[in-house]
């Protein structure tokens, strides 16, 4: 920490202060975000895009700390394991079996038109 005695009464006290992380925090954060997004069915390149975007501060800071090679490998590992099921297209206007031309972590299986 830049100084030793943060005062909770001081509205600036915790600003401009860095709380040190454990050595593996960035890697753990990268695995967490990659796993959660893989569970949501996101493809590898979308997840990498998110890591590279400063708008998403958590993944971005992990990306800065780890670099592209490690992050790409983490994403690949998570997508291989977690997103190994096929994503099912529901409420799709295309005929069953037709490729909708979207990218996902896993191959599509189009279930055809459905009503909700």
């Amino acid at each position: 920490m830049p100084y030793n005695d943060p005062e909770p009464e001081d509205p600036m006290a915790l600003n401009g202060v860095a709380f040190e992380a454990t050595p593996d925090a960035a890697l753990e954060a990268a695995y967490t975000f990659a796993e959660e997004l893989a569970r949501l069915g996101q493809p590898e390149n979308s997840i990498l895009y998110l890591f590279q975007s400063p708008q998403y501060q958590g993944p971005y800071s992990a990306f800065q700390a780890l670099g592209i090679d490690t992050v790409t490998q983490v994403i690949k590992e998570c997508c291989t394991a977690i997103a190994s099921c096929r994503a099912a297209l529901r409420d799709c206007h295309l005929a069953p079996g037709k490729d909708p031309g979207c990218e996902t972590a896993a191959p599509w299986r189009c279930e055809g038109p459905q009503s909700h």
Partner: protein
Amino acid sequence: MPNVYNWQLGRDMGYPYEAEYPKRQFAFVFNTNRCIGCQTCTMACKSTWTFSKGQENMWWANVETKPYGGYPQHWDVKILKLLQQANPDAQTWTPGDASNPRQPYGTFDGKTVFEAAEKMLSPDSARVLGYLPKDEEWINPNIYEDNPSGKTGIKGQYDTSGTSLPEHKTWFFYLARICNHCQYPACVAACPRKAVYKRPEDGIVLVNQQECRGYRKCVEACPYKKTMYRGNTRISEKCVGCYPRVEGSDPESKGLPMETRCMAACIGQIRMQGTVLLNEDGTWAEDRNHPLYYLVHVAKVALPLYPQFGTEPNGYYIPPRWVPRPYLHQMFGPGVDAAIERYMYPDRELLAVLQLFRRSNRIIYRYKMEEGPKVYEGTLRGKPFEMYDDTVIAYGPNGEELFRTKIEEPIYVRPAVHQNSI
């Protein structure tokens, strides 16, 4: 002071009123690993309940960046400091048998906000250790929370050029918060007019607007700072648990219990809310296939927020995996390590229950799993890992099926003819 049993602390504790429990209890689980800090939940609440004059600085639902932020500012640092002063270096836990539902986190040996009050406060009528936040602490939610660090050793000043900022290995996570509709609410304990009460049907804690005279005792007492004072009406207000939705009397709910606005709006799919059955002693009744019971008492991945405060909060959190453990132990108690280990390597049932989050706005009362084929066998982070495409089915209060979903993520593609297509 009467004694009540607090299962989160694993022991009896002093509380100003005799124990009395609702039939079912409003409860929720937030998965901090998924929150993206988008504040959609915050705005869903704001636009429903607190959009009027006098409520400008009132955010019943808020999301703060930990460890830097808080709404009101420094709320948890301040209450932890007060407890530390009341009971120096003795806010500790004794480990116990995690399989005992009456004390799954062991026993808390320190003092709660009720017990510390006996030592710290005068006059004797003061019932809860707390403090009244200043106006400045309420009016700037999220201010400075996401600012970058300045130069080492220069206090309270940002770097002027930003050309060579120091590189720190820092961490943060988003903590979403609403009122915890506590089993032993500090707001209820503190109100001299008994204007704050807990509903017997669902345990939702409300302020009776006719009875409240704006003494702000509840604002001072709530350790989570979730009661708020409204200047133009001179009475206090708080999260109402969206009770018309929960009881099914909201026109949109069509008579069936519905999750609250902040839950239903969650973009990151981090939130699940429901009502759990209680035993006569206030502990959770075994309800093996209730998703909240499963997450809190079977998988034990969801933990109460600052259980040491002693109010037995009904908000439970899956802790963030990457955050230093001492910080998490302080925030979520001794269950942290086991919860993270379990969450990192989920089994079939946990994966299935996690799929129930935000598939529907209806409150889930029960789930059932139907086993599917194995779709992956390999390793994840050096450990064996298997995935099965199981189906999980959610049921409503009368046993009716609400929805069913699979581990494989369904993705909905809108036809070009949808009304809102561009």
